[in-house]
């Protein structure tokens, strides 16, 4: 079996695969557990979607950990909380554009994995570089000629890109091949049972990824009637024919952000990356408790609420209020935003 890195740039294989995908309007709903079991295969390249900690499919990533998938190849553009699995055999290596949580800091398991050589870095990338590679796959072109990454050391640590002469201008350009990940899991606000997906707020690379990846699992906050998707296609970012499974997973981006619905749990994220994952032992304890010790995403959220000493409903409501506060739309998704007399302090208090 070829390595994921060989499949990643294989136009023909990607095309053959897609020629065989059904275009029929089939009901693709299934439980998240089943979708992960069936579509995430050991050794697959798994591309990050959303912006890792904003509209990322975190429920699915925790489930991947629970099912102890092996030797995945991460494509981190950016990579957030989904890179701890290498300490549990789950990730062989990665294509790295960025791994961290910005102001919340570096992610300790990623850092020590690379420093110790237990997590391979197959290639360094820039965000723009990976975005263009995925876009090239979406647009159906073999590669794109970019002005990013030239002159930098990234060029020396990425065997998949090439510097060439622009045949028109004679200038150096960086050629970025079309990228076809094995599997993408994309979390959206609404999906219908066939896999059409709608997302508000950031799109990042998700339309490109949905069309580039061989296998696509859509997780959504809510299944909606397909007539709704057809009547309002303007914010739909994923078409049904590239989707293999649809899973209704409310709070599926937790503890990340879901625009207009619930805000990052910033203290929790910070605690995790800085304290609870600080050593391999601490990380193992955390995984034992939060991942192996729970059966699903909701038990995990309950556990997080318990840790804060509050009722689960109160806990998620707080994140929902913050999301409405962050949105200019005074409706919010649930139509509750208008009731909230929010202040900067309300958001900021939770941010410390």
């Amino acid at each position: 079996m070829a390595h994921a890195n060989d499949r990643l740039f294989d136009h023909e294989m990607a095309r053959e695969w897609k020629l065989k995908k059904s275009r029929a309007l089939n009901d693709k709903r299934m439980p998240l557990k089943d979708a992960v079991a069936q579509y995430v295969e050991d050794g697959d390249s798994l591309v990050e979607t959303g912006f890792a900690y904003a509209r990322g499919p975190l429920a699915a990533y925790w489930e991947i950990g629970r099912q102890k998938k092996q030797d995945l190849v991460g494509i981190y553009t950016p990579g957030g909380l989904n890179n701890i699995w290498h300490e549990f055999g789950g990730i062989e290596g990665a294509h790295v554009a960025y791994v961290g949580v910005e102001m919340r800091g570096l992610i300790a398991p990623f850092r020590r994995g690379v420093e110790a050589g237990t997590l391979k870095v197959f290639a360094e990338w820039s965000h723009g570089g990976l975005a263009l590679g995925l876009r090239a796959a979406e647009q159906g072109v073999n590669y794109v000629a970019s002005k990013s990454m030239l002159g930098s050391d990234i060029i020396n640590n990425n065997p998949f890109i090439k510097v060439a002469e622009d045949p028109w201008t004679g200038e150096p350009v960086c050629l970025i091949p079309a990228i076809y990940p094995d599997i993408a899991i994309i979390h959206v606000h609404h999906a219908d049972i066939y896999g059409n997906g709608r997302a508000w707020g950031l799109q990042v690379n998700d339309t490109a990824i949905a069309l580039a990846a061989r296998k696509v699992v859509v997780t959504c906050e809510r299944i909606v009637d397909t007539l709704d998707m057809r009547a309002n296609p303007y914010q739909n970012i994923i078409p049904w024919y590239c989707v293999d499974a649809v899973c209704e997973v409310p709070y599926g981006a937790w503890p990340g952000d879901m625009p207009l619905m619930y805000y990052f749990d910033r203290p929790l994220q910070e605690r995790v990356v800085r304290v609870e994952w600080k050593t391999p032992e601490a990380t193992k304890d955390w995984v034992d408790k939060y991942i192996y010790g729970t059966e699903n995403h909701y038990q995990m959220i309950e556990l997080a609420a318990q840790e804060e000493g509050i009722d689960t409903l109160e806990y998620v409501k707080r994140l929902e209020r913050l999301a409405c506060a962050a949105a200019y739309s005074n409706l919010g998704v649930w139509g509750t935003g208008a009731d909230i007399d929010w202040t900067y302090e309300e958001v900021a208090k939770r941010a410390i």
Partner: protein
Amino acid sequence: MSEVTYTPRELLAVIASRLIQDGDSVFVGTGLPLVGALLAHKSHAPQMMSIYEGGSIGPEPKVLPWSVADPLTFYKAPIILSMSSVFGHARAGYADVGFLGGAQVDMYGNINATCIGPYGKCSVRLTGSGGANDMASLCQRLIFMGLHLPERFPEKVDYITTPGFLGGPGEREKAGLIGGGPWRVISHLGLMGFDEESCRMKLLSYHPGVNPEIIQQFTGFELLVDDDVVETPKPTEEELDVLRTQVDPNHLFCF
């Protein structure tokens, strides 16, 4: 009248904001650039257009975002585009200023956000480029903000994540990079620019309380000093007031 007092981070934020002109389009990186950009927007540059790699363009942020994909960056944004599209804006000429942080910057303005120590045997693995490489490769002018310590201002960075003038004059063009490259470096000690001929970092102004000699002590290479070097004007009460009451009232970044 009592003396204006401020913290080093507040000073950084104020200097950063002053480098942005009204009407500039600014590609905003994470960290202190978020603060500097918002302060400019809320004070002297209401017509500034900010671009975030999360996809938001032209928002009127009410509250300081903590991430370039924070929904707070979408606040009143008229459009949110994909990641390849926003970096495409920089290539196409819609981004005047790129605004970044990072771990190390060298005398030619090359920035390291990948690793401390030799690649493959590093002592500290950092985040990697994110959008930093793209911003520096494509924007018209680049501003870098960072702490001023000898190991953070080495003669040569351990890893060129983000290209400045590379090895010196002419190398940026030779590599095929576009845009003007590094333009300003803001540290907690001074404001630096780059010598037009040698492409080397040059001190333009030193912050109150230090002088060029002290700054040289904290720099890992010979820092050129501009003939017209001056003391950095202190933050005004008005600037600090906007920063403290409208941009970062809870002192999340500026403490």
